[in-house]
C-alpha cells in the first residue's frame, strides 16, 4: 500500500510476459478455415468444375465414359416428351447430335420442350446412345423475356 507523503519509486519495472493465447487462437481459426475451404473444394470444384458434359463431348468420348455416371447437357427436343408413371422420356439434342433419355423421378416444374436440361445418369451400355437418367435439372438461360401473347416484333426481328 502506498503512502501519499512518501517519495515515489521510479525504478523501471519489467513488463509481465504477454500471453500468447491470441496467436494460438488465430492459428486455430485459420486451421478451421483451411479445413472448411478444402472440404468445399473437394465437394465442389474438383468434381464439378465443369458441371456437365455436352452431348457432342459425351458422344466423342463414349469409349472412355462407358456406363459411368455423368451429367449430360442438351436441349429437350420438341414433340418428343412422353411422361410416364415413373418419370419421362424424351430426345435431347446438342452439337448436332441427339440422345434418347429415359429419366426416372418427377421432372422439375420448368421442364418443357426447347429448354436446356442437365440429366444425371449414364449410358445404358458402352456403345448405346440411350441415356438412363436418375435426375433432371433445368438449366434456365440468362434471358428474361416478358410474357406477351401479342408481342410486337421490331423491324429487325427482335421481340421485347
Amino acid at each position, binding site marked *: *500500500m*502506498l503512502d*501519499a507523503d512518501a517519495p515515489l519509486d521510479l525504478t523501471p519495472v519489467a513488463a509481465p510476459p504477454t500471453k500468447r*493465447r*491470441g496467436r494460438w*487462437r*488465430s492459428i*486455430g*481459426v*485459420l486451421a*478451421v*478455415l483451411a479445413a*472448411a*475451404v478444402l472440404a*468445399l*473444394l473437394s*465437394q*465442389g*470444384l474438383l*468434381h*464439378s*468444375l*465443369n*458441371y*456437365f458434359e*455436352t452431348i457432342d463431348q459425351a458422344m466423342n468420348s463414349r469409349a472412355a465414359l462407358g456406363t459411368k455416371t455423368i451429367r449430360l*447437357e442438351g436441349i429437350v427436343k420438341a414433340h418428343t416428351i412422353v411422361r410416364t408413371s415413373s418419370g419421362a422420356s424424351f430426345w435431347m439434342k446438342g452439337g448436332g447430335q441427339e440422345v434418347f433419355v429415359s429419366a426416372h423421378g418427377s*421432372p*422439375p*416444374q*420448368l*421442364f*418443357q420442350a426447347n*429448354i436446356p436440361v*442437365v440429366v444425371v445418369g449414364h449410358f445404358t451400355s458402352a456403345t448405346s446412345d440411350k441415356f438412363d437418367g436418375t*435426375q*433432371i*435439372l*433445368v*438449366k*434456365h*438461360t*440468362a*434471358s*428474361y*423475356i*416478358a*410474357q*406477351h401473347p401479342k408481342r410486337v416484333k421490331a423491324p429487325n426481328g427482335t421481340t*421485347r
Partner: protein
Amino acid sequence: MIRQLSQRLLGPVTLVLLVLTLWLGLWVTPSFEVQGNLARLVYVHPAIAWVALYVSFGTATIASALYLWRRTRSAVVDRVAHCAMEVSVVFIILTLITGSIWGRPAWGVWWAWDARLTSTAILGVFALAYLALRRANDDPELRARRGAVLALLAAINVPIIHFSVQWWKTLHQGATVFTPDHGLKIHGIQAWTLLISFIGFTLLFFWLLRARYRLEVLRDERYAASLEEALVQRRREGVR
C-alpha cells in the same frame, strides 16, 4: 448540412426504393416467358448478390488495404472494414438462401455443387473466418492487421465467382446485366425494376454499415471510458 441531410434521408430513401421494388416486382411487371412468376426473384437475388460480392465485400477489402498501408492506417478504416465484413456475411447468406429458393423449382434442386455456388459458399466461409479471427485477438492492432490480410486473401475469390460462369460449364445461368458482350438480356419495365432493386439494396448496405459503424464507435468509447474508470479506481485503491 448536405452531409446531415443525406444521412437523414438515407433510411427513408432506402425504404421507398425497396417498397417500390416489391410493388413493381410482384404486381406491376409482367411474368416471364419461360419461368413465369418464379423469375420475379430476379428483382431480389441478383441485387443481393451484387451487394454481397462487390459493394460490401469490396468495401471491406478496400478498407483493409487502406489499413495495411501506413499512410492511411487508422481506427476509422479498421472499423469500416470490420463493419462492412459483418454486413457482407449477412448478404452472402441471403444470396445463398434466395438462390436456393429460386433453384428448387427452377433447377429442381436446393443446391448444386457447381463452380458459382461453391465459390460463393467459400467466400462466406472466408467472411466468417475474418470475424472469428478478429475475436481471437485481444490486441487491437494485431486484430486489425491479421483481419486485413485475410480480407485481401479472400478477395481473390471475387473475380473467380464473377467469371466462373464463363470459365467453366455451370448450372447457374450466365450474366443478365454484366454480360461479356455488354448486351442487356432484360428489357423495359423489368429492366427498370431491376435497376431500382440494385440501387435499393446498395443503399440498404450503406444504411446498415452506418448503423453498425455507430454501434462500433459507441462500443469503443464505452471500452475506453470503462478502462479509464478502472484505472482511476485502481489509483484510488493504491493511495489512501
